[in-house]
């Protein structure tokens, strides 16, 4: 019994001494934290994203010696896609003066949005998080470029219109939206409803409850409805099951379109050949052909510094991680151009984000020509209003099959500004006057 008591005592003491021990870092490094989820139910998506992000940062360190000579200190923190663990990570990493944060989870993003302004750490939620944050006048610290769920939904409708032969042909067509029954899944609904009113197509919304392992009834309803097109906003295990169920009811795969979190290798693997022809949106290319990926192979993997499996480089989500890291480091570069080649503060990086202009020329210099679309972020527009691509699974890999499809800005932007006002006021924010910004 003595021993037990001692053990408990020791445990208590150790617990008491356990605050996040900060590792001292040189002043010449900039601290780039990575919130990752390499374990847990969402790890199949989390692993490639995290590897892509990390490998690109390592590439900059290995090939260029950092950003303009400032090395990047990388630290990962595992969140398991869980909000509470994400908050813990953020609070722990905050003490090391991170220049920005990529939350990599909708829940964590919502958590960090109010904190960003207080802690002066810009938040980049690339293609997830709060759509309303695209209005930079209300949310100066939050960025979600290159594009948002609402823009994406409108671009999908434009794509469908293109395939059908014009917007006027949409009249009377049936489009179903199968969505994850969470705020994330519902994001596209208002946009789709608005477009359905405008163009006269018949929209059916079908919710799938979390986690979505059983979707029989949803797909039975699809089978009866027999929609012309089905759009899926899924997440986690819901994706794999949705693709499989769609195949099981013999739904035409080339008329099934996933959003960009519903179209990765992991989502089609369990369905196998049945998934051939399945489409999804994206905002960058997959594969290993681009120079930047070749550079990662050469400078990172050949030197044994890769974060993951060499064979899985070029997967959709891996490349998304690369794109994300590129956007962030380019914003840091923009900040350095104004504030000097030293580790920038969060405030300076925020300025960098708001003045980020990625041209085709710059993308070419980065070895990313055609890899993703040029982006221009401004004080008003934190979304960049970026166009999207449609990619298709050919049984072995994802191939981009469309040109860049522009979102329907005149529908999306007014809704977005109204939402931003509502969300901003909820937090007690006031609207910025962008003409007064530097």
């Amino acid at each position: 019994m003595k021993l037990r008591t001692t053990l408990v005592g020791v445990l208590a003491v150790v617990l008491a001494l356990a605050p996040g021990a900060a590792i001292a870092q040189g002043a010449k490094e900039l601290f780039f934290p990575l919130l990752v989820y390499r374990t847990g139910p969402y790890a199949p998506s989390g692993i490639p994203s995290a590897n892509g992000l990390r490998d690109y940062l390592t590439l900059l360190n290995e090939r260029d010696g950092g950003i303009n000579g400032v090395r990047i200190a990388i630290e990962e923190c595992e969140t398991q896609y869980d909000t509470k663990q994400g908050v813990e990570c953020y609070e722990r990493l905050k003490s090391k003066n991170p220049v920005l944060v990529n939350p990599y989870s909708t829940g964590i993003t919502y958590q960090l949005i109010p904190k960003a302004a207080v802690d002066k750490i810009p938040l980049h939620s690339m293609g997830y998080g709060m759509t309303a944050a695209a209005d930079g006048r209300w949310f100066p610290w939050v960025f979600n470029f290159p594009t948002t769920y609402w823009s994406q939904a409108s671009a999908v409708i434009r794509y469908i219109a293109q395939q059908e032969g014009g917007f006027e042909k949409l009249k009377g067509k049936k489009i179903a939206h199968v969505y994850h029954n969470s705020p994330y899944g519902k994001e596209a609904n208002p946009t789709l409803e608005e477009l359905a009113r405008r163009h006269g197509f018949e929209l059916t919304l079908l919710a799938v409850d979390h986690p979505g392992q059983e979707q029989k009834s949803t797909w039975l309803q699809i089978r009866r409805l027999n929609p012309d097109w089905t759009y899926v906003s899924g997440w986690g295990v819901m994706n794999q099951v949705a693709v499989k169920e769609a195949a099981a009811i013999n739904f035409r795969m080339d008329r099934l379109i996933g959003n960009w979190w519903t179209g990765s290798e992991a989502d089609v693997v369990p369905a196998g050949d049945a998934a051939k022809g399945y489409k999804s949106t994206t905002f960058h290319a997959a594969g290993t052909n681009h120079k930047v990926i070749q550079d990662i192979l050469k400078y990172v993997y050949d030197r044994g510094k890769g974060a993951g499996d060499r064979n899985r480089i070029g997967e959709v989500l891996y490349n998304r991680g690369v794109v994300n890291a590129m956007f962030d480091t380019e914003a840091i570069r923009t900040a350095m151009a104004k504030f000097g080649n030293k580790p920038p503060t969060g405030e300076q990086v925020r300025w960098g984000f708001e003045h980020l202009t990625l041209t085709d020329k710059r993308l070419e210099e980065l070895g990313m020509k055609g890899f993703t679309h040029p982006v221009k972020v401004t004080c008003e527009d934190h979304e960049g209003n970026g166009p999207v691509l449609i990619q298709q699974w050919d049984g072995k890999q994802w191939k981009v099959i469309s040109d860049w499809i522009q979102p329907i800005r005149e529908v999306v932007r007014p809704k977005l500004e109204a939402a931003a006002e509502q969300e901003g006021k909820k937090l007690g924010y006031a609207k910025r006057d962008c003409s007064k910004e530097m």
Partner: protein
Amino acid sequence: MIYREAGQFKTTYASDQAIFPIREDRVAVAAIVAAAFAVPLVASEYWLQAVLIPFLVYALAALGLNLLTGYAGQLSLGTGGFMAVGAYSAFKITTAFPQVNILAVFVLSGLIAAAVGLVFGVPSLRIKGFYLAVATLAAQFFLLWLFNKVAWFTNYASSGTITAPPRSVLGVMVTGPGATAEARYVVALAVVALFALLAKNLVRSRVGRSWMAIRDRDIAAEIIGVRPLRAKLLAFGISSFLCGVAGAEYVFLYLGSAETLAFDVNVSFLVLFMIIIGGLGSVLGSFLGAGFIVLVPIFLTNAPHLVGLSLPVALQKQIELMVFGGLILFFLIVEPHGLARLWQITKEKLRLWPFPY
């Protein structure tokens, strides 16, 4: 030696029935509470925001569940749902009536949660044990579905989430983005300290004794005159009240904003784990259990850094899970009745120390 009751004579019934009859206990508890209020002076924001505030909020929820499961013997897996009721009520009330003091809002939302708890407690009159869990799980899934589905609960927010608006108490910001971690911590601490004291008194009152009678043998309890309908529903009501307040705090003091997923069934399980590990039927156990479930994983996450070990995060998390599972088993095998019982045994030993025999 330092902890003994020799020479402390009780000359009145009141002193004999005090919550802490031994002077050392009184001193220790007073010191702990005082120290807890002094913590913000020394603790970093990381400690307050990521460790202590969730600990206090979970402790309150665990306290609520412990009254229901530990004292009244009714197994519930609806904690997350009742917490969500508290959180969404608080959001609705404070956005509709911004002038109402936020602490009053917490209490009101607790009352709404209590009402919902009463409704879902009705099946407990007929269903027992693990079977009762299903009734409460029905509450859990239905309530979350409702909050998710009906946009009115989020004030038709395009994001579908609820966000804590800025509110102050006595001129100090306690919720919203502008509130400091210190302020939120002190509010959470005050609330949980108050309710712990009330709970401690409640469980030794007539109500508490009737709960324990129901728990230990409900038919016998009925025969000696305990009304099961009243006792069980009261347990559901009071437990849900505390869970509701905890849920409101969860969003307003800890997370700042939340979607329904923040209250999913895992939260219900987590709070249940807390009271089993901490000790069923023990107020102290609720705190110890919350401490175990909240602090141990954080400690395990940080442990490799402390000894200078740098593992890949995935491997570290996997080891953490294994060690955490192992620790639960270890503590159960060492003392199946929870950490509170372990503490009690220690105290017994301490009374005799250093001359056990």
